[in-house]
Protein backbone atom coordinates (compact mmCIF):
# COMPACT_ATOMS: atom_id res chain seq x y z
CA UNK A 1 0.00 0.00 0.00
CA UNK A 2 1.33 3.46 -0.89
CA UNK A 3 1.01 5.51 2.29
CA UNK A 4 1.57 8.80 0.39
CA UNK A 5 -1.48 8.10 -1.75
CA UNK A 6 -3.82 7.89 1.27
CA UNK A 7 -6.44 10.61 1.58
CA UNK A 8 -7.47 12.19 4.90
CA UNK A 9 -10.07 9.54 5.65
CA UNK A 10 -7.57 6.80 4.95
CA UNK A 11 -4.97 8.38 7.23
CA UNK A 12 -7.55 8.79 9.98
CA UNK A 13 -8.39 5.12 9.66
CA UNK A 14 -4.71 4.27 9.83
CA UNK A 15 -4.14 6.34 12.96
CA UNK A 16 -7.22 4.83 14.59
CA UNK A 17 -6.04 1.31 13.78
CA UNK A 18 -2.57 2.09 15.17
CA UNK A 19 -4.07 3.52 18.37
CA UNK A 20 -6.27 0.44 18.84
CA UNK A 21 -3.27 -1.82 18.29
CA UNK A 22 -1.12 0.12 20.80
CA UNK A 23 -3.87 0.18 23.45
CA UNK A 24 -4.52 -3.53 23.06
CA UNK A 25 -0.78 -4.13 23.25
CA UNK A 26 -0.51 -2.29 26.56
CA UNK A 27 -3.40 -4.30 28.03
CA UNK A 28 -2.14 -7.63 26.69
CA UNK A 29 1.43 -6.93 27.78
CA UNK A 30 0.39 -6.20 31.38
CA UNK A 31 -2.13 -9.03 31.73
CA UNK A 32 0.23 -11.48 30.03
CA UNK A 33 2.77 -10.97 32.84
CA UNK A 34 0.14 -11.94 35.40
CA UNK A 35 -0.90 -15.03 33.43
CA UNK A 36 2.76 -16.01 33.08
CA UNK A 37 3.45 -15.49 36.78
CA UNK A 38 0.43 -17.57 37.77
CA UNK A 39 1.41 -20.25 35.25
CA UNK A 40 -1.91 -19.65 33.49
CA UNK A 41 -0.61 -18.60 30.08
CA UNK A 42 -2.78 -21.23 28.42
CA UNK A 43 -5.78 -19.86 30.27
CA UNK A 44 -5.96 -16.91 27.87
CA UNK A 45 -5.96 -19.46 25.05
CA UNK A 46 -8.91 -21.25 26.61
CA UNK A 47 -10.75 -17.99 27.27
CA UNK A 48 -10.23 -16.87 23.68
CA UNK A 49 -11.73 -20.10 22.34
CA UNK A 50 -14.59 -19.82 24.79
CA UNK A 51 -15.75 -16.53 23.23
CA UNK A 52 -16.84 -18.28 20.04
CA UNK A 53 -20.16 -19.83 21.15
CA UNK A 54 -21.30 -16.46 22.53
CA UNK A 55 -20.31 -14.80 19.29
CA UNK A 56 -22.12 -17.50 17.33
CA UNK A 57 -25.34 -17.10 19.29
CA UNK A 58 -25.20 -13.31 18.94
CA UNK A 59 -24.63 -13.66 15.22
CA UNK A 60 -27.56 -16.01 14.75
CA UNK A 61 -29.87 -13.74 16.78
CA UNK A 62 -28.73 -10.29 15.62
CA UNK A 63 -26.75 -10.80 12.41
CA UNK A 64 -23.49 -8.93 11.80
CA UNK A 65 -24.04 -6.47 14.65
CA UNK A 66 -20.68 -5.82 16.35
CA UNK A 67 -22.35 -4.66 19.53
CA UNK A 68 -24.24 -7.94 19.82
CA UNK A 69 -21.14 -9.94 18.90
CA UNK A 70 -19.02 -8.16 21.51
CA UNK A 71 -21.67 -8.65 24.18
CA UNK A 72 -22.08 -12.32 23.20
CA UNK A 73 -18.31 -12.88 23.41
CA UNK A 74 -18.10 -11.03 26.72
CA UNK A 75 -20.92 -13.11 28.22
CA UNK A 76 -19.44 -16.41 27.03
CA UNK A 77 -15.93 -15.49 28.26
CA UNK A 78 -17.09 -14.42 31.70
CA UNK A 79 -19.33 -17.51 31.98
CA UNK A 80 -16.35 -19.75 31.11
CA UNK A 81 -14.12 -18.07 33.71
CA UNK A 82 -16.86 -18.49 36.32
CA UNK A 83 -17.55 -22.13 35.33
CA UNK A 84 -13.85 -23.05 35.45
CA UNK A 85 -13.52 -21.37 38.86
CA UNK A 86 -16.54 -23.24 40.21
CA UNK A 87 -15.46 -26.59 38.72
CA UNK A 88 -12.00 -26.30 40.28
CA UNK A 89 -13.44 -25.46 43.69
CA UNK A 90 -16.39 -27.87 43.76
CA UNK A 91 -14.87 -30.89 41.99
CA UNK A 92 -11.49 -32.63 41.95
CA UNK A 93 -10.54 -30.85 38.73
CA UNK A 94 -7.62 -28.42 38.83
CA UNK A 95 -8.36 -25.04 37.26
CA UNK A 96 -6.19 -25.70 34.19
CA UNK A 97 -7.92 -29.05 33.64
CA UNK A 98 -11.32 -27.37 33.89
CA UNK A 99 -10.23 -24.82 31.27
CA UNK A 100 -8.81 -27.56 29.03
CA UNK A 101 -12.15 -29.36 29.07
CA UNK A 102 -14.15 -26.20 28.44
CA UNK A 103 -11.76 -25.02 25.69
CA UNK A 104 -12.33 -27.95 23.36
CA UNK A 105 -16.08 -28.06 23.84
CA UNK A 106 -16.57 -24.30 23.47
CA UNK A 107 -14.40 -24.06 20.36
CA UNK A 108 -16.29 -26.89 18.64
CA UNK A 109 -19.71 -25.44 19.50
CA UNK A 110 -18.57 -21.98 18.40
CA UNK A 111 -17.29 -23.19 15.01
CA UNK A 112 -20.54 -25.13 14.46
CA UNK A 113 -22.69 -22.11 15.27
CA UNK A 114 -20.70 -19.69 13.11
CA UNK A 115 -20.42 -22.13 10.17
CA UNK A 116 -24.15 -22.78 10.29
CA UNK A 117 -25.10 -19.15 9.79
CA UNK A 118 -22.09 -17.54 8.12
CA UNK A 119 -19.53 -18.08 5.37
CA UNK A 120 -15.93 -19.32 5.81
CA UNK A 121 -14.81 -15.73 5.26
CA UNK A 122 -16.84 -14.55 8.26
CA UNK A 123 -15.30 -17.26 10.41
CA UNK A 124 -11.83 -16.26 9.24
CA UNK A 125 -12.55 -12.62 10.11
CA UNK A 126 -13.57 -13.57 13.64
CA UNK A 127 -10.63 -15.89 14.15
CA UNK A 128 -7.92 -13.69 12.62
CA UNK A 129 -9.35 -10.14 12.67
CA UNK A 130 -9.07 -7.19 10.30
CA UNK A 131 -7.48 -4.21 11.95
CA UNK A 132 -8.26 -1.81 9.12
CA UNK A 133 -11.96 -2.51 9.64
CA UNK A 134 -11.98 -1.06 13.17
CA UNK A 135 -14.42 1.75 13.81
CA UNK A 136 -14.65 4.54 16.35
CA UNK A 137 -16.51 2.24 18.74
CA UNK A 138 -13.52 -0.14 18.72
CA UNK A 139 -11.22 2.73 19.66
CA UNK A 140 -13.53 3.79 22.51
CA UNK A 141 -13.75 0.19 23.72
CA UNK A 142 -9.97 -0.22 23.56
CA UNK A 143 -9.59 3.05 25.50
CA UNK A 144 -11.97 1.84 28.22
CA UNK A 145 -10.23 -1.55 28.42
CA UNK A 146 -6.84 0.19 28.72
CA UNK A 147 -8.09 2.58 31.39
CA UNK A 148 -9.51 -0.36 33.36
CA UNK A 149 -6.34 -2.43 33.00
CA UNK A 150 -3.84 0.33 33.73
CA UNK A 151 -6.07 1.56 36.57
CA UNK A 152 -6.23 -1.92 38.08
CA UNK A 153 -2.44 -2.32 37.84
CA UNK A 154 -1.89 1.11 39.41
CA UNK A 155 -4.34 0.88 42.29
CA UNK A 156 -4.03 -2.88 42.79
CA UNK A 157 -0.31 -3.21 42.06
CA UNK A 158 0.53 -4.56 45.49
CA UNK A 159 -2.42 -6.95 45.67
CA UNK A 160 -1.70 -8.25 42.16
CA UNK A 161 1.99 -8.69 42.96
CA UNK A 162 1.27 -10.57 46.20
CA UNK A 163 -1.36 -12.78 44.58
CA UNK A 164 0.99 -13.59 41.68
CA UNK A 165 4.11 -14.12 43.78
CA UNK A 166 2.80 -15.78 46.92
CA UNK A 167 -0.93 -16.37 47.29
CA UNK A 168 -0.54 -17.70 50.87
CA UNK A 169 1.27 -14.56 52.00
CA UNK A 170 -1.40 -12.44 50.33
CA UNK A 171 -3.99 -14.37 52.32
CA UNK A 172 -1.96 -14.03 55.50
CA UNK A 173 -2.01 -10.27 54.94
CA UNK A 174 -5.80 -10.29 54.78
CA UNK A 175 -5.86 -10.11 50.97
CA UNK A 176 -8.81 -11.35 48.92
CA UNK A 177 -7.11 -13.62 46.43
CA UNK A 178 -10.29 -14.88 44.76
CA UNK A 179 -11.41 -11.30 44.09
CA UNK A 180 -8.06 -10.37 42.55
CA UNK A 181 -8.03 -13.57 40.48
CA UNK A 182 -11.56 -13.10 39.14
CA UNK A 183 -10.95 -9.39 38.51
CA UNK A 184 -7.88 -10.19 36.42
CA UNK A 185 -9.72 -12.92 34.50
CA UNK A 186 -12.53 -10.45 33.84
CA UNK A 187 -10.00 -7.99 32.40
CA UNK A 188 -8.51 -10.75 30.20
CA UNK A 189 -11.98 -11.46 28.80
CA UNK A 190 -12.71 -7.76 28.21
CA UNK A 191 -9.40 -7.28 26.36
CA UNK A 192 -9.93 -10.44 24.28
CA UNK A 193 -13.38 -9.24 23.29
CA UNK A 194 -12.02 -5.78 22.47
CA UNK A 195 -9.38 -7.40 20.25
CA UNK A 196 -11.98 -9.49 18.44
CA UNK A 197 -12.50 -7.06 15.56
CA UNK A 198 -8.90 -6.04 15.06
CA UNK A 199 -6.90 -9.18 15.74
CA UNK A 200 -9.45 -11.97 15.96
CA UNK A 201 -9.90 -14.36 18.85
CA UNK A 202 -6.94 -16.62 18.11
CA UNK A 203 -4.24 -14.11 17.24
CA UNK A 204 -5.09 -11.77 20.13
CA UNK A 205 -3.47 -14.40 22.33
CA UNK A 206 -0.09 -13.40 20.96
CA UNK A 207 -0.43 -10.04 22.70
CA UNK A 208 -0.74 -11.80 26.05
CA UNK A 209 1.90 -14.49 25.85
CA UNK A 210 4.75 -13.33 23.59
CA UNK A 211 5.60 -9.90 25.14
CA UNK A 212 5.40 -11.32 28.67
CA UNK A 213 7.67 -14.30 28.05
CA UNK A 214 10.10 -12.06 26.13
CA UNK A 215 10.19 -9.50 28.96
CA UNK A 216 10.71 -12.23 31.57
CA UNK A 217 13.97 -13.16 29.81
CA UNK A 218 15.32 -9.62 30.16
CA UNK A 219 14.15 -8.43 33.60
CA UNK A 220 15.05 -9.22 37.23
CA UNK A 221 12.42 -6.89 38.70
CA UNK A 222 8.63 -7.28 38.40
CA UNK A 223 7.80 -3.64 37.70
CA UNK A 224 10.40 -3.51 34.92
CA UNK A 225 8.96 -6.68 33.44
CA UNK A 226 5.48 -5.12 33.36
CA UNK A 227 6.73 -1.94 31.66
CA UNK A 228 8.89 -3.82 29.15
CA UNK A 229 6.13 -6.31 28.31
CA UNK A 230 3.57 -3.54 27.68
CA UNK A 231 6.12 -1.56 25.64
CA UNK A 232 7.12 -4.57 23.53
CA UNK A 233 3.49 -5.40 22.85
CA UNK A 234 2.65 -1.81 21.85
CA UNK A 235 5.74 -1.48 19.66
CA UNK A 236 5.12 -4.90 18.08
CA UNK A 237 1.53 -3.92 17.37
CA UNK A 238 2.60 -0.75 15.49
CA UNK A 239 5.43 -2.43 13.57
CA UNK A 240 3.26 -5.43 12.73
CA UNK A 241 0.47 -3.23 11.51
CA UNK A 242 2.91 -1.31 9.35
CA UNK A 243 4.13 -4.59 7.88
CA UNK A 244 0.55 -5.59 7.23
CA UNK A 245 -0.12 -2.34 5.35
CA UNK A 246 3.03 -2.74 3.29
CA UNK A 247 2.51 -6.37 2.35
CA UNK A 248 -1.26 -6.74 2.45
CA UNK A 249 -0.89 -9.70 4.79
CA UNK A 250 -3.47 -10.20 7.62
CA UNK A 251 -2.78 -7.60 10.31
CA UNK A 252 -3.19 -9.91 13.32
CA UNK A 253 -0.76 -12.41 11.86
CA UNK A 254 1.79 -9.65 11.11
CA UNK A 255 1.58 -8.23 14.65
CA UNK A 256 1.95 -11.62 16.29
CA UNK A 257 4.77 -12.59 13.93
CA UNK A 258 6.63 -9.41 14.95
CA UNK A 259 6.18 -10.31 18.60
CA UNK A 260 7.29 -13.86 17.79
CA UNK A 261 10.51 -12.48 16.30
CA UNK A 262 11.09 -10.43 19.46
CA UNK A 263 10.58 -13.59 21.48
CA UNK A 264 13.03 -15.54 19.33
CA UNK A 265 15.60 -12.74 19.65
CA UNK A 266 15.08 -12.61 23.42
CA UNK A 267 15.53 -16.37 23.73
CA UNK A 268 18.94 -16.01 22.14
CA UNK A 269 20.27 -12.64 23.32
CA UNK A 270 18.55 -11.81 26.65
CA UNK A 271 20.43 -12.06 29.97
CA UNK A 272 18.42 -15.16 30.77
CA UNK A 273 18.61 -16.44 27.18
CA UNK A 274 20.69 -19.11 25.46
CA UNK A 275 23.88 -17.12 24.78
CA UNK A 276 24.28 -15.65 28.25
CA UNK A 277 23.39 -18.87 30.01
CA UNK A 278 25.73 -20.78 27.72
CA UNK A 279 28.52 -18.29 28.49
CA UNK A 280 27.76 -18.57 32.21
CA UNK A 281 27.93 -22.37 32.12
CA UNK A 282 31.15 -22.19 30.08
CA UNK A 283 32.75 -19.93 32.74
CA UNK A 284 31.55 -22.29 35.47
CA UNK A 285 33.14 -25.26 33.70
CA UNK A 286 36.42 -23.31 33.25
CA UNK A 287 36.43 -22.32 36.92
CA UNK A 288 35.81 -25.93 37.92
CA UNK A 289 38.64 -27.13 35.67
CA UNK A 290 41.04 -24.50 37.13
CA UNK A 291 40.05 -25.56 40.61
CA UNK A 292 40.74 -29.24 39.79
CA UNK A 293 44.14 -28.39 38.31
CA UNK A 294 45.11 -26.35 41.34
CA UNK A 295 44.00 -29.19 43.61
CA UNK A 296 46.20 -31.66 41.67
Amino acid sequence: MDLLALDEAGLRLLVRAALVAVLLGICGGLLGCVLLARRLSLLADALAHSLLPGIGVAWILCGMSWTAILLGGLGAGLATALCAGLLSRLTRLAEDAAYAGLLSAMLAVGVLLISWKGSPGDLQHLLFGQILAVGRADLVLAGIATLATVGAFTIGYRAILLECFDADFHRACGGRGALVHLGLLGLVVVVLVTALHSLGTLLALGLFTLPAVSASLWCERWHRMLVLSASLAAAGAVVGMGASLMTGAPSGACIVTCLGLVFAGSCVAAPNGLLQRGRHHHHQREDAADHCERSV
Partner: protein
Amino acid sequence: MSGDALAWRNLTVCYGTRPVVHHLDAGVPRGACMALVGRNGAGKSSLLRATVGWLPWTTGAITLDDVPAGGGDPRLHLLTQHPTHTSAVPLTVADVVAQGRYRLLGCLRGFSADDHAACTQALAAMALTGLAGRPFARLSGGQQQRVGIARALATGAEVLLLDEPFAGLDPVAAADLADRLRRWADDGRLVVFATHELDLVRRIATHALLLNTHGVACGPFAEVFTDASLAAAMAAPHVAERA
Protein backbone atom coordinates in the same frame (compact mmCIF):
# COMPACT_ATOMS: atom_id res chain seq x y z
CA MET B 1 -4.41 -19.52 82.33
CA SER B 2 -3.75 -15.98 83.51
CA GLY B 3 -0.86 -14.15 81.88
CA ASP B 4 -1.36 -15.90 78.58
CA ALA B 5 -1.09 -13.58 75.60
CA LEU B 6 -2.33 -16.13 73.06
CA ALA B 7 -5.01 -18.51 74.34
CA TRP B 8 -7.09 -21.33 72.86
CA ARG B 9 -10.18 -21.97 74.96
CA ASN B 10 -12.18 -25.19 74.46
CA LEU B 11 -11.19 -25.06 70.81
CA THR B 12 -12.51 -27.69 68.39
CA VAL B 13 -11.63 -27.61 64.69
CA CYS B 14 -13.29 -30.12 62.34
CA TYR B 15 -12.77 -31.32 58.79
CA GLY B 16 -16.31 -32.32 57.94
CA THR B 17 -17.48 -34.21 61.01
CA ARG B 18 -13.98 -35.34 62.04
CA PRO B 19 -12.37 -33.19 64.74
CA VAL B 20 -8.68 -32.50 64.10
CA VAL B 21 -8.32 -30.34 67.21
CA HIS B 22 -10.56 -31.49 70.01
CA HIS B 23 -11.60 -29.30 72.97
CA LEU B 24 -8.16 -27.75 73.35
CA ASP B 25 -7.45 -25.54 76.35
CA ALA B 26 -4.01 -23.97 76.15
CA GLY B 27 -2.20 -20.67 76.29
CA VAL B 28 1.21 -19.06 76.05
CA PRO B 29 2.61 -15.78 77.41
CA ARG B 30 4.31 -13.03 75.41
CA GLY B 31 8.04 -13.48 75.00
CA ALA B 32 7.69 -17.26 74.78
CA CYS B 33 9.11 -19.50 72.08
CA MET B 34 6.53 -22.29 72.01
CA ALA B 35 7.05 -25.64 70.29
CA LEU B 36 3.96 -27.38 68.95
CA VAL B 37 4.77 -31.09 69.03
CA GLY B 38 2.77 -34.14 67.95
CA ARG B 39 2.68 -36.94 65.43
CA ASN B 40 1.52 -36.44 61.83
CA GLY B 41 -2.19 -35.64 61.80
CA ALA B 42 -2.19 -34.51 65.43
CA GLY B 43 -3.73 -31.18 64.42
CA LYS B 44 -0.67 -28.92 64.57
CA SER B 45 -1.12 -27.29 61.15
CA SER B 46 -4.89 -27.09 61.63
CA LEU B 47 -4.42 -25.33 64.97
CA LEU B 48 -2.05 -22.79 63.39
CA ARG B 49 -4.42 -22.23 60.46
CA ALA B 50 -7.41 -21.81 62.75
CA THR B 51 -5.42 -19.36 64.86
CA VAL B 52 -5.04 -16.97 61.91
CA GLY B 53 -8.64 -17.53 60.84
CA TRP B 54 -7.96 -19.73 57.80
CA LEU B 55 -10.01 -22.59 59.27
CA PRO B 56 -13.32 -22.15 61.07
CA TRP B 57 -13.70 -23.66 64.51
CA THR B 58 -16.70 -25.54 65.84
CA THR B 59 -16.46 -24.71 69.53
CA GLY B 60 -14.48 -22.38 71.74
CA ALA B 61 -12.48 -19.22 71.14
CA ILE B 62 -9.01 -17.93 70.28
CA THR B 63 -7.87 -14.75 71.97
CA LEU B 64 -4.78 -12.56 71.83
CA ASP B 65 -4.40 -10.31 74.87
CA ASP B 66 -8.00 -11.24 75.78
CA VAL B 67 -9.26 -9.90 72.44
CA PRO B 68 -10.72 -12.41 69.94
CA ALA B 69 -8.15 -13.26 67.24
CA GLY B 70 -8.41 -14.82 63.79
CA GLY B 71 -10.05 -13.62 60.59
CA GLY B 72 -6.98 -11.91 59.13
CA ASP B 73 -5.83 -10.40 62.44
CA PRO B 74 -2.75 -8.26 61.63
CA ARG B 75 -1.23 -9.04 65.05
CA LEU B 76 -0.65 -12.65 63.96
CA HIS B 77 1.32 -13.92 61.00
CA LEU B 78 1.52 -17.51 59.75
CA LEU B 79 4.31 -18.96 57.64
CA THR B 80 2.98 -22.10 55.99
CA GLN B 81 4.86 -25.38 55.64
CA HIS B 82 4.99 -25.40 51.85
CA PRO B 83 5.92 -21.99 50.46
CA THR B 84 3.64 -20.98 47.60
CA HIS B 85 5.91 -18.38 46.05
CA THR B 86 6.82 -18.67 42.38
CA SER B 87 10.06 -17.99 40.56
CA ALA B 88 8.06 -16.66 37.60
CA VAL B 89 7.83 -13.24 39.30
CA PRO B 90 11.27 -11.63 39.17
CA LEU B 91 12.03 -9.93 42.50
CA THR B 92 15.09 -9.13 44.58
CA VAL B 93 15.40 -10.18 48.22
CA ALA B 94 14.74 -6.56 49.27
CA ASP B 95 11.57 -6.51 47.12
CA VAL B 96 10.25 -9.63 48.87
CA VAL B 97 10.97 -8.31 52.37
CA ALA B 98 9.32 -4.98 51.45
CA GLN B 99 6.07 -6.89 50.82
CA GLY B 100 5.83 -7.23 54.59
CA ARG B 101 4.90 -3.54 54.77
CA TYR B 102 2.17 -3.66 52.10
CA ARG B 103 -0.62 -4.39 54.53
CA LEU B 104 0.24 -1.39 56.69
CA LEU B 105 0.65 0.88 53.68
CA GLY B 106 -2.48 -0.11 51.77
CA CYS B 107 -2.75 0.31 48.01
CA LEU B 108 -1.03 3.56 47.25
CA ARG B 109 0.83 4.98 50.27
CA GLY B 110 4.59 5.15 49.65
CA PHE B 111 7.33 3.83 51.93
CA SER B 112 8.27 6.16 54.78
CA ALA B 113 11.64 6.22 56.57
CA ASP B 114 10.12 3.97 59.25
CA ASP B 115 9.04 1.42 56.65
CA HIS B 116 12.51 1.37 55.12
CA ALA B 117 13.99 1.01 58.60
CA ALA B 118 11.68 -1.92 59.40
CA CYS B 119 12.78 -3.69 56.21
CA THR B 120 16.46 -3.01 56.90
CA GLN B 121 16.10 -4.37 60.43
CA ALA B 122 14.27 -7.46 59.19
CA LEU B 123 17.00 -8.13 56.63
CA ALA B 124 19.68 -7.69 59.29
CA ALA B 125 17.81 -9.91 61.79
CA MET B 126 17.92 -12.77 59.29
CA ALA B 127 21.52 -12.01 58.13
CA LEU B 128 20.31 -11.11 54.66
CA THR B 129 21.71 -7.59 54.31
CA GLY B 130 24.40 -8.74 51.90
CA LEU B 131 21.87 -10.53 49.74
CA ALA B 132 19.36 -7.67 49.52
CA GLY B 133 19.99 -7.00 45.85
CA ARG B 134 20.16 -10.65 44.77
CA PRO B 135 17.33 -12.23 42.72
CA PHE B 136 15.13 -14.15 45.16
CA ALA B 137 14.64 -17.05 42.74
CA ARG B 138 18.37 -17.78 42.71
CA LEU B 139 18.68 -18.27 46.48
CA SER B 140 18.92 -21.68 48.09
CA GLY B 141 15.90 -23.15 49.87
CA GLY B 142 17.32 -22.23 53.27
CA GLN B 143 18.00 -18.65 52.20
CA GLN B 144 14.49 -18.34 50.76
CA GLN B 145 13.12 -19.62 54.07
CA ARG B 146 15.03 -16.87 55.89
CA VAL B 147 13.70 -14.26 53.45
CA GLY B 148 10.16 -15.48 54.22
CA ILE B 149 10.77 -15.00 57.93
CA ALA B 150 12.37 -11.57 57.36
CA ARG B 151 9.25 -10.58 55.42
CA ALA B 152 7.09 -11.78 58.31
CA LEU B 153 9.24 -9.71 60.72
CA ALA B 154 8.75 -6.68 58.49
CA THR B 155 4.96 -6.98 58.87
CA GLY B 156 5.34 -5.87 62.48
CA ALA B 157 3.21 -8.82 63.65
CA GLU B 158 3.40 -9.50 67.37
CA VAL B 159 2.93 -13.24 67.03
CA LEU B 160 4.78 -15.35 64.49
CA LEU B 161 3.35 -18.79 63.77
CA LEU B 162 5.54 -21.17 61.78
CA ASP B 163 4.53 -24.53 60.35
CA GLU B 164 7.56 -26.86 60.05
CA PRO B 165 10.09 -24.04 59.63
CA PHE B 166 13.07 -26.42 59.65
CA ALA B 167 11.79 -28.80 56.97
CA GLY B 168 14.30 -29.15 54.14
CA LEU B 169 17.11 -27.28 55.94
CA ASP B 170 20.50 -28.83 56.64
CA PRO B 171 21.39 -29.18 60.36
CA VAL B 172 23.56 -26.05 60.45
CA ALA B 173 20.97 -23.87 58.71
CA ALA B 174 18.18 -25.31 60.90
CA ALA B 175 20.13 -24.58 64.12
CA ASP B 176 20.91 -21.06 62.89
CA LEU B 177 17.24 -20.42 62.09
CA ALA B 178 16.18 -21.85 65.46
CA ASP B 179 18.55 -19.51 67.32
CA ARG B 180 17.21 -16.52 65.40
CA LEU B 181 13.61 -17.47 66.28
CA ARG B 182 14.58 -17.69 69.92
CA ARG B 183 16.24 -14.27 69.81
CA TRP B 184 13.11 -12.81 68.23
CA ALA B 185 11.01 -14.24 71.06
CA ASP B 186 13.51 -12.95 73.62
CA ASP B 187 12.88 -9.46 72.24
CA GLY B 188 9.37 -9.68 73.72
CA ARG B 189 7.34 -11.11 70.87
CA LEU B 190 5.72 -14.52 70.68
CA VAL B 191 6.84 -17.40 68.46
CA VAL B 192 4.82 -20.60 68.02
CA PHE B 193 6.34 -23.24 65.74
CA ALA B 194 5.17 -26.73 64.80
CA THR B 195 7.99 -29.22 64.24
CA HIS B 196 9.17 -32.82 64.43
CA GLU B 197 12.77 -31.75 65.15
CA LEU B 198 12.88 -32.57 68.86
CA ASP B 199 16.58 -31.65 69.24
CA LEU B 200 15.81 -28.13 68.03
CA VAL B 201 12.79 -28.00 70.33
CA ARG B 202 15.06 -28.81 73.28
CA ARG B 203 17.52 -26.17 72.05
CA ILE B 204 15.20 -23.15 71.81
CA ALA B 205 11.71 -23.78 73.23
CA THR B 206 10.70 -21.97 76.41
CA HIS B 207 7.21 -23.46 76.29
CA ALA B 208 5.62 -26.49 74.64
CA LEU B 209 2.18 -27.63 73.59
CA LEU B 210 1.97 -31.36 73.02
CA LEU B 211 -0.95 -32.18 70.82
CA ASN B 212 -2.65 -35.42 69.86
CA THR B 213 -5.89 -33.97 68.50
CA HIS B 214 -6.64 -33.10 72.12
CA GLY B 215 -4.13 -31.19 74.21
CA VAL B 216 -1.77 -33.60 75.99
CA ALA B 217 0.22 -31.01 77.91
CA CYS B 218 0.89 -27.29 77.73
CA GLY B 219 3.16 -25.03 79.75
CA PRO B 220 6.80 -24.13 80.47
CA PHE B 221 9.09 -26.46 78.56
CA ALA B 222 10.85 -28.11 81.50
CA GLU B 223 7.55 -28.94 83.17
CA VAL B 224 5.63 -30.41 80.26
CA PHE B 225 8.21 -31.83 77.85
CA THR B 226 8.58 -35.15 79.66
CA ASP B 227 8.98 -38.67 78.28
CA ALA B 228 5.46 -39.54 79.45
CA SER B 229 3.76 -36.57 77.77
CA LEU B 230 5.84 -37.04 74.63
CA ALA B 231 4.78 -40.70 74.47
CA ALA B 232 1.14 -39.66 74.87
CA ALA B 233 1.50 -37.06 72.10
CA MET B 234 3.04 -39.59 69.73
CA ALA B 235 0.58 -42.38 70.58
CA ALA B 236 -2.04 -43.78 68.19
CA PRO B 237 -4.74 -41.36 67.10
CA HIS B 238 -7.22 -40.23 69.68
CA VAL B 239 -10.57 -41.02 68.01
CA ALA B 240 -13.30 -38.56 68.80
CA GLU B 241 -16.81 -37.84 67.67
CA ARG B 242 -17.81 -34.38 66.65
CA ALA B 243 -18.14 -31.97 69.55
